[in-house]
Each structure stands twice: as structure tokens, then as C-alpha cells.
């Protein structure tokens, strides 16, 4: 409530006064505010909070062949943390995150800055065409790249052979992770570029003029004015990328069909959880894996944010 305790304490005893700070008009507004929130939070509770709690509950049990469900404490978690299949998968998406995300966001930032500088002919067309892959579902993108990667009839192999470079194998166990990084990069550079570009467009022009008067060139301008100004947008794309990479599913599950030797059923933790739950029927263990994955994502996101805030403070201290 918005009334301060000091105010109510000092009031002498007497006939109950109407609560002053909440006038009838304010109370109507407050009620309206809650009513506006209600539909969202009903769905929020039932589709996010309840399933999450239920997953936590499930992960604490194990199903016995005889006697049904039995409380298992943290046994599923202990099993997950010593399960090489899960840990390898986690390491794989971690590697994916460390390599693919800087490339993807770096490219997106480069395109956003280049387009914002308005120095290229046909900027509008460039922007739209780079953005276009975002309209393609991950399923279609993976199917398509699967054909493009094909060693016999894929156009990349055809061109490579034509210029005498031999046949590259994009689908071997060693190269499949890189091939997958390429698919995800292709899909999401444009999406991230648009978020950054939109932020760049909202930088007030005065900042540029001041920098220009100081004699800053395009690169200096980008580094010292534009990039610091769009830091919140960069954080947003980074957090979305954490969530995206750790949850990889469609790409491994579809590539599995054309490269079964390279993609194991635990290639990524998400794909592993799916296989555990729906193929092996190990629901409780799958819930523990999913929960652990969620915790890892939360921790990585937290550190990413912390890093962002720290560098912002450093920047502030310097200026």
C-alpha cells in the first residue's frame, strides 16, 4: 500500500477516516490495473509456473517396475551430473555458444552499423534480404542445408569438386557441430541485426554532430558513440542467444536422419531430454535433465548480465 506507516501511526484515535492516500478514483484505477493484468497472469501461472513446479516435483521421483512412483530425492540429479551423455551434450552446446554466438552477433552488429551509416547502395534491399532467413522455420532451414551439405549432389560439393578441392564432408562427426553453427547463424543474423539496427536508428542525432565536430571518423563514431548507446539492445540479443543455443533441438533432431553416425541421441541436452521422455519413457530422469538445463541457462544468463553491467559501470567511471 502506498500510505506511509508514520502517517497512520500519528493519527489520533477517533471515527475511522477514509484512507486518505487511496482516493476512490485511485482505487478504481488500481482495480483496473489488476484486471488488465489478470488474463496474462492466469495463463502465466498455468502455463509457466505450474508446469515448472510440476517438473521439479517429477524430478524428485523415480518409477519402479513394481510399486509405481517412489520418492528418490536428488538421485536423478546425481545420475544426471555423472551421466557422460548429458555432460558431453552440455559441453557441446557450451562450445556452440562460445563459438557461434560471437560470430553471429559480430556479423549482425557489422551489418547493422554498415546499414546505419547509409554508405551502401541499396541499403533497404540488403536489410530485407539478410533478414529473410528469419521467416524460414528451423525445420525447413535444416532440411534445406541438409541437402546443400550433401556430399554427392549438394551444390557446395559440386562447386568444390569443379574447382578441384575435392568433396568436403559437412556431415562427419567432426564437422557436424560446425555445420549446425552455420545453419543457426544463417537463420538468426538478420533477426539480431534488426534489433540492433532499430536501436541504432533511435540514437539522437545530436550525439553524432558532437562527435563529428570533434573530428571522429566512421569507425571512431561506431566504437565510441554507437556501440555504447545500443548496449541494452546488445544485451537483449545476447540473452536470447544464450537461451537459443542451450536449447538446440530442431537442428540435431532433423540432422539425425541424414547423419545418424554424427548425431547421437544425446547430442544436445534438449534432444536428450526429449529422447529420454518420449522414446525411453524415463520421465523423471528427463525432468531432472530439463531442470538442470534450465538452471544452467539461468546461471549463464546471470553472468552475461553481470558482465554487461560491470562494463557499463567501468564506462561510466571513465567518462
Amino acid at each position, binding site marked *: 500500500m502506498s500510505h506511509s506507516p508514520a502517517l497512520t501511526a500519528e493519527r489520533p484515535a477517533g471515527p475511522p477516516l477514509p484512507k486518505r492516500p487511496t482516493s476512490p478514483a485511485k482505487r478504481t484505477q*488500481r482495480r483496473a*490495473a489488476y484486471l*488488465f*493484468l489478470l*488474463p*496474462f497472469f492466469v*495463463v502465466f501461472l498455468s*502455463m509457466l509456473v505450474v*508446469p*515448472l513446479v510440476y517438473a521439479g516435483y517429477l524430478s524428485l521421483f523415480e518409477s519402479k517396475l513394481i510399486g509405481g512412483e517412489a520418492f528418490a530425492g536428488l538421485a536423478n540429479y546425481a545420475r544426471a551430473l555423472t551421466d557422460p551423455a548429458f555432460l558431453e551434450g552440455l559441453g557441446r552446446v557450451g562450445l556452440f555458444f562460445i563459438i557461434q554466438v560471437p560470430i553471429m552477433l559480430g556479423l549482425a552488429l557489422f*551489418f547493422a552499423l554498415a*546499414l546505419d551509416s547509409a*554508405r*551502401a547502395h*541499396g541499403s533497404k534491399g*540488403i536489410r*530485407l534480404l*539478410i*533478414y529473410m*532467413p*528469419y521467416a*524460414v*522455420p528451423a*525445420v*525447413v532451414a535444416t*532440411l*534445406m542445408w541438409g541437402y*546443400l551439405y550433401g556430399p554427392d*549432389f549438394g*551444390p557446395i560439393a*559440386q562447386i568444390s569438386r569443379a574447382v578441384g578441392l575435392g568433396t568436403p564432408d559437412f556431415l562427419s562427426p567432426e564437422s557436424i557441430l560446425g555445420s549446425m553453427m552455420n545453419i543457426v547463424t544463417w537463420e538468426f543474423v*538478420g533477426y539480431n541485426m*534488426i*534489433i540492433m539496427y*532499430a*536501436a541504432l536508428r533511435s*540514437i*539522437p*542525432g*545530436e*550525439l553524432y554532430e558532437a562527435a563529428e565536430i570533434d573530428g571522429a571518423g566512421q569507425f571512431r563514431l561506431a566504437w565510441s558513440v554507437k556501440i*555504447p*548507446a545500443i548496449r*541494452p539492445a546488445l544485451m*537483449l540479443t545476447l540473452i536470447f542467444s544464450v*537461451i537459443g543455443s542451450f*536449447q538446440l*533441438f*530442431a537442428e540435431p533432431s532433423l540432422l539425425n*536422419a*541424414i547423419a545418424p553416425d554424427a548425431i547421437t541421441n544425446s547430442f544436445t*541436452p534438449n534432444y536428450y531430454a526429449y529422447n529420454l*521422455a518420449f522414446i525411453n519413457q524415463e520421465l523423471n530422469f528427463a525432468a531432472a535433465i530439463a531442470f538442470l*538445463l*534450465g538452471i544452467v541457462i*539461468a546461471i549463464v*544468463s546471470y553472468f552475461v548480465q553481470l558482465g554487461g553491467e560491470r562494463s*557499463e559501470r567501468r*564506462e*561510466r567511471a571513465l567518462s
Partner: protein
Amino acid sequence: MTSRVGPALVTPGDGDEAVAPGRSRPRYAPGKRRSILLTVLLWLCVLYFVLPLWWLFVSSTKNNSALFSTFGMWFGGDFSLWDNLQTLFTVRDGIFLRWMLNTFVYAFASAAGATLLATMAGYSFAKYDFPGKKVLFSATLGAVMIPLTALALPTYLLFSQAGLTDTPWAVIIPSLVSPFGVYLMRVYAADAIPDGLIEAARVDGAGEFRIFWQVGLRLLGPGLVTVFLFSLVATWNNYFLPLIMLNSSSLYPITVGLAQLQSAASAGGGSQALFSTVITGSFVSILPLVIAFLFLQRYWQSGLASGGVKG
């Protein structure tokens, strides 16, 4: 579009907060010096994004043997697009059309619902003061980070107990929650709806709901379109949720349907011709969104401009 530029927009510590040009400000013109080098470089990069789609189009005009015997990046063999389309729309009693329709229904119902819920919530966060506001908003923001996997499995189990799996509801209801949409709408509403206008409407005796419908919604145009399109693309492209929830192939969206066709094609099963069907199907399935992008992209950007800036 009237808008106020918030403090987060100005670089830290330069004390220029008082200057508040709108997003529609005349843009600082960098002297119209175009760079040939940059132009060539960017257009070369564009090839990387476009050539796979070009391959998809070219390949959908080939029959199955030409698909594997001609150069992938150019037309070859007979022009079989019409034959492929005919096969696509008649295979398994025309189920592909059914998948397209399902995708439309799921995506539009989810996007409309999610946008409405997110707009009401975002408006409330932006324009009202009430106890618990901070906690509720933090919960919403934190939810952006909850991975789909942690939710999909228990949601599936809960839905199956409620008898909702293998129904359209199983795909639509979970897609109604859009925490990012709430965040965007809050930022957008804070900028786009002047408090004075709401006060004026109150003085005129309008109720809170009337103000929302008649004043608020009208000023939220680009923000609404952005949230709608984001939810639409998310549901349209979703694979994991419908894969888990649906068993009957007559309920599949295109993503799950195509994946099923593809696995039938790779498994052989005596139907090699399926490859060109899968490729043509992929090509047809991306057309609606690509066309929507061409027409609506300007809205995305103006709607996102506010959200990306205040993160």
C-alpha cells in the same frame, strides 16, 4: 508517431537528457558519401543469405532425377514445378493443404491471444501504479529465461491428464504467454501514450476500460504489430511443442508434417519421389511468411526501436 526518448537512450554521463527528439526526427545526414567498397562487400554477404533460398526455389522446379543429376544452383532437366505442386497437394489425400491451414489457425489464434494479453498487461505496467508492480514485472522478465524444454514435458503431462493433448488447444494455449511481448508493450506504451491524454479522458468521465480501448489501443499501432508478428513467427516456426503434443497427422502444422515427410523420404520406403515433394513443400511453406515480411517489415522496426533501446 509521437514519442519521447528516454534517458536510457543517451550515452551515460553526458548530461544531454533534456534534448528529446522523437523517433521521427530528421535524421542526421552523413554527407551522402556512398562507398563502393562497402556496397560490394555487403552485397557479397547478401549472397550467403539468399543463395540457399534460391537453391530451394530452383530445386522445387526439378523432378526427382534432375534434382540429383543437375547443378543445384541452376535450372536443369524439365521444368517440373507444376507437377511437383500437383503431387504435393495430392499426396496422402491432400494432407499438405491441411497442414498449411492448421499452421494458419494455430499461428493466428496464438498471436492474436498473446498480443491481447501482452498489450493489456504491458499497458497496465506502463500506466498504473499499484502494489506488487515491481514483483510481478520482475517475474515476467525472469520468465523470458525459462527454457521451453523444462516446460514442455510437464505441460505435456498436465495436458494429457486434462485430455487436451492431440487437440489444437495443446498448441495454442501454451503459446499465449509472451513475456517478451509484455516487456515490449510496456516500453512502447510508456512512450506512445501521454499521461495527459489519459487524465483528459478521465476528466471527460471515461472509464478505465474505455480509455484503454479507445485511447490506448489507437496509439499502440506499431507496438501491437511487432508483438503480433513476433508471436506469429514463433508459433508458425515452432516444432518442439506440436511435435510433443500432437499424434494425429491431420492436426500437424507444416513444420512437423514436413519433418515427417522428410524422414519417410530418407528412410526410402520405396518412395524416392518424396524428395522433390519435401523440397517443393518447404518452398511453398515459407512463401506466406516471406511475403508478410516484405509488406510488414517497416512495422517491426519501429515497434522494436523502443524495445531494443530500453533493455
